[in-house]
């Protein structure tokens, strides 16, 4: 069980940048990817903003055959494919293979099929035109659509698993891939997650009154984690992907090593002790973080940076409090903490993987990205931790160990510990 697992490739489709160079530039410079969506105003949504990647659909022809492209309608699948295949080539490997790659598997998560694309199915069936649906619906409607397209393109022959744990999905996928390599089942795992918040999913969140509604005329200022004026999150879409490899396997092929995954934990608060379908049980969260540290052999003091979940709801304060208790660090002693959601909104299932890509880039390039829109920090948060721990400008510093966590509906938690590769 002495295997070490490293990250050898990254890919990202983010609202504020597609591809690693654009995304790195965006997170270093605090560039927002939140846009006004006129259609949402027409639909009487309270929140009319979204983090929507500037994704060119036709560009998918660079990744998949024309035959596969023809009839592909699932936006989540498109995002996932682009991020996954970018990560693969970033890792220095070609797409083509005749034999299945038995040593490589895939854990890729998502929430739901593209319901806008599925609307066609509903209309056809209701109009008694089921014969016209064709053969390409099921593969895109099934929850494993994203993993099926990715693994098919690359010939992945090890475990191919689709996970779903609401907003904890991405982090959980990375942890699952890590565990499969750690336990010797696979040498390499393509991990990540995708999300396309279509109109119907968006509307369902809007109706819960958990979205920001007071900044519709200032899109880039609307996602305000940890601030007094944080009034809900902004839904975002996209995908993040990582190539995880057994260290020896990666070294044998002289792969570039971005970082090491030291360990992690995924648990649930059981929807008990204050936890509900939509709220985290703090005891479960603290346990998750502590277990992640223990499995990584890292002490709380070693954490340089926290990449928080921090969605810009009233749960932010409780999250910071949970971190202070889990790490037993507060005030000036608290690690530098940021929320990528200030720039891209909350990408739900894709949040964990896009944010982990950001965390790894911070290790690779030795910086801590800013929290944008934190002009008015919530005093309930700054009573717990120093305002200097919540950077509003990029900080260049030594970043050795990052704790990355996400918490999701269903009271599920995931936390991973990432380290500079030494």
């Amino acid at each position: 069980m002495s295997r070490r697992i490293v990250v050898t490739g990254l890919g990202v489709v983010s609202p504020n940048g597609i591809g690693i160079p654009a995304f790195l530039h965006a997170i270093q410079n605090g560039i927002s990817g939140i846009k006004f969506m006129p259609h949402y105003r027409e639909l009487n949504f309270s929140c009319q903003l979204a983090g929507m990647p500037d994704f060119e659909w036709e560009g998918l022809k660079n990744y998949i055959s024309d035959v596969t492209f023809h009839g592909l309608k699932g936006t989540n699948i498109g995002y996932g494919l682009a991020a996954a295949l970018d990560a693969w080539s970033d890792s220095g490997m070609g797409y083509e293979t005749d034999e299945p790659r038995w040593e490589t598997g895939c854990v890729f998560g998502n929430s739901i099929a593209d319901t806008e694309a599925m609307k066609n199915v509903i209309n056809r069936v209701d109009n008694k035109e089921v014969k016209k649906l064709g053969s390409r619906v099921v593969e895109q409607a099934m929850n494993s659509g994203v993993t099926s397209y990715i693994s098919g393109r690359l010939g992945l022959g090890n475990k191919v698993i689709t996970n779903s744990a609401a907003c904890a999905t991405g982090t959980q996928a990375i942890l699952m891939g890590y565990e499969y390599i750690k336990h010797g089942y696979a040498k390499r795992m393509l991990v990540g997650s995708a999300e396309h918040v279509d109109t119907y999913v968006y509307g369902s969140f809007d109706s819960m009154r958990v979205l920001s509604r007071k900044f519709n005329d200032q899109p880039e200022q609307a996602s305000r984690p940890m601030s007094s004026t944080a009034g809900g999150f902004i839904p975002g879409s996209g995908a993040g992907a990582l190539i995880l490899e057994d260290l020896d396997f990666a070294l044998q092929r002289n792969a570039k090593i971005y970082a090491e995954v030291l360990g992690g934990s995924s648990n649930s608060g059981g929807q008990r002790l204050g936890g509900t379908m939509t709220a985290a049980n703090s005891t479960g969260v603290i346990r998750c973080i502590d277990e992640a540290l223990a499995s990584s052999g890292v002490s709380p003091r070693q954490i340089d940076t926290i990449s928080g979940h921090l969605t810009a709801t009233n749960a932010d304060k409780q999250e910071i409090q949970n971190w202070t208790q889990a790490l037993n660090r507060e005030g000036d002693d608290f690690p530098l903490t940021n929320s990528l959601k200030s720039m891209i909104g909350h990408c739900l299932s894709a949040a964990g993987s896009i944010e982990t890509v950001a965390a790894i880039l911070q290790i690779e390039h030795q910086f801590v990205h800013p929290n944008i829109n934190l002009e008015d920090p919530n005093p309930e948060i700054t009573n717990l931790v120093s305002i200097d721990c919540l950077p509003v400008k990029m900080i260049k510093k030594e970043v050795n160990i990052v704790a990355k966590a996400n918490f999701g509906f269903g009271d599920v938690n995931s936390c991973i510990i990432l380290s500079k590769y030494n």
Partner: protein
Amino acid sequence: MTRTEILIELKKVFAPYTTNKEMLDGITDETDLIKDLKINSANLVDIIIDAEAKYDIEIDYDSADKIINVGTCIDLIMEKLNHDK
């Protein structure tokens, strides 16, 4: 509509589904859709749906099962076209 005319149009119907684009130009009655044109068998359904729309005909499930090569495909379309007249 003659067999040749249908053949020319059918190439356009097959085009999005074949990975063997080089072969498409020279197809004959004997060209097998799956073995020669490398069309995924699941996509035959989509070709039938596209052909139905193109020729404004209806191809029932039992007739569709007879489609093996380009020739049987043309036979079926001619039969349906004539029947609908």
